[in-house]
């Protein structure tokens, strides 16, 4: 049983939603707002949206795509935005730029559609995070497995999804610990490939449990 030099410390995060004064009633206004809103707002409408709707695997998991589809009826653009994979982003600036760039291109190509009034406004909001250590740690993969079995969705999302913004890596807390703490590079890579879009958070956790059980063996 390999002991990691540094144990894995489990934590979680609780969020408060702050509704900003900024609103968009048209696609062009959304585009303008995306240039002015805070990073906390970009986070809320993308990473945090994935957590709020983690039990759904159909439809769009980010708020921008969802609004463009449901309130503006612009399916093509909605699909383009939904195709942006949060796992590819280690910072919010790159994510913001890519979203703006896709919407900007669309507004330029279809200026009339960009001016159409949406069925309902888009309310820019921010996520305010309060992170909490859980006073639980794992020193071995076996111990990690036992904790993961009982981990909340909030904690799983904190370590597996939003961690890349803290790490500034295209990775997550779990993979980093498997790799640097336990020397299990292959497990780290396979963990990082788990699809958080076509799986619910619970299904993603089950996949990770399966990968670890394969590593531990009978």
């Amino acid at each position, binding site marked *: 049983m390999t002991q990691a030099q540094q144990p894995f410390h489990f934590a*979680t995060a*609780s*969020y*408060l939603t702050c509704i900003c004064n900024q609103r968009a009633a048209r696609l062009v206004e959304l585009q303008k707002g995306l240039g002015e809103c805070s990073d906390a707002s970009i986070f809320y409408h993308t990473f945090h949206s994935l957590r709020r709707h*983690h039990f759904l695997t159909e*439809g769009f998991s980010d708020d921008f795509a969802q609004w463009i589809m449901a309130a503006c009826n612009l399916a093509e653009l909605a699909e383009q935005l939904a195709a942006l994979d949060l796992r590819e982003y280690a910072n919010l600036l790159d994510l913001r730029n890519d979203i703006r760039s896709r919407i900007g291109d669309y507004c330029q190509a279809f200026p009339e559609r960009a001016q159409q009034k949406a069925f*309902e406004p888009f*309310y820019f909001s921010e996520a305010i995070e309060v992170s909490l250590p*859980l006073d639980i740690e794992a020193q071995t993969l076996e111990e990690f497995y036992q904790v993961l079995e009982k981990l909340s969705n909030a904690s799983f999302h904190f370590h597996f999804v939003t961690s890349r913004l803290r790490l500034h890596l295209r990775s997550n807390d779990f993979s980093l610990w498997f790799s640097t703490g336990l020397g299990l590079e292959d497990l780290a890579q396979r963990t990082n490939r788990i699809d958080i879009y076509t799986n619910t958070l619970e299904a993603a956790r089950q996949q990770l449990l399966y990968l670890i059980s394969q590593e531990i063996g009978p």
Partner: protein
Amino acid sequence: MNETRHESHTVHLEDYVPVVGAAEMQELHALANRMKARSVQMVNSTSVGGGVAEILSRLVPLLKELGVTVRWDVMTGGNDFFEVTKAFHNALHGAPFEKTAESFDIFLAYNEQNCARLEMDAELTVIHDPQPAALINGRKDRSGHWIWRCHIDLSNPNPTVWNFLEPYVLRYDGTLFSSPSFTHQLPIPQYLFYPSIDPLSEKNRELEPEFIQSVLERFQIDPKRPILTQISRFDRLKDPVGVVQAYKIVKRYFDCQLVLAGGGAADDPEGGKVLDEVREVSAGDPDIFILDLPPWSASEINALQRASTIVIQKSLREGFGLTVTEALWKKKPVVASAVGGIPIQVIHKQTGMLVHSVEGTAYQIRYLLSNPSFASRLGQLGHEHVREQFLITSAISRYLTLFLHSLDQA
């Protein structure tokens, strides 16, 4: 006399573990541990009756059990005060305001009396709704954190009343609204706080099948045929006549029954008129059950919701729509109007079906009756959605997060 509420509580935190999970409850404790030795005060205008008192009567004991020092105070006022605040309430929902300028004096006088009566010295004070909003005058030297919780739909307020209240609201450190569409352009933070239901309350707890059966028998409803149900007051804004019209379309295709259950007809002349209209359009159909239930019918409503094949909420206007939350929690497929807070709960084709007309309501009911496995999946996902966002445990988590954030800001 200071009317500090002393709530009796028979439900304990550990009772929620099977409902929301041990890990989630552990996280509530972790949040609450950081609130030890901090004081919180909640103030509203009634200790019984109404949604706010119902929420506080569950929330406050649970916060105490988590170790938070929390006090719940109720402001007092004469009939003249509550007449004014009732008019305020309606006006903030967009109705005309017909009171005189003296109304504002009455409002302020009672708030001032309560300022003198209540001890307002907690580190975190949450004032619920407009009635006690001017208690902010009792804040000493900008001490503590003061939050105004608005439980009502402020999306289209009467400007006379809102212009009067707004300067008081702006003196708070933050506001809490139930939907983004209820917020305003304000220079203070506006946080999103969904209303919540208690899964262990009489209206929502699991029921024995025998009890559900007995309720159906009492009302002579056939459990073997599909049951379509709308639970709501007999109020035009809930469009019960529209529900009957939608049912009549569905009835051409399915041998189903309709249950319209609610109250409000006995003590509300308008409710009585609406009930008469509903009876008129339903006349001669033995499969329509119009149940004017007394206020103490929580278990019966619970049973009717659980016995339903589909739950309808065809409102023309709605606040948040907690009857939708209750139905989703019971894993029922819901067909509901896209108004007020309903679209927050019903994500179209994922946690329910959103509709905009009588015809649309009828079509979606037919679709769900034809596709029971899809209907069942909607119910399952609706239940998950409520578990994540709209249970009292989520409300506790939001309050604790708000308190910790406010203290961090200080």
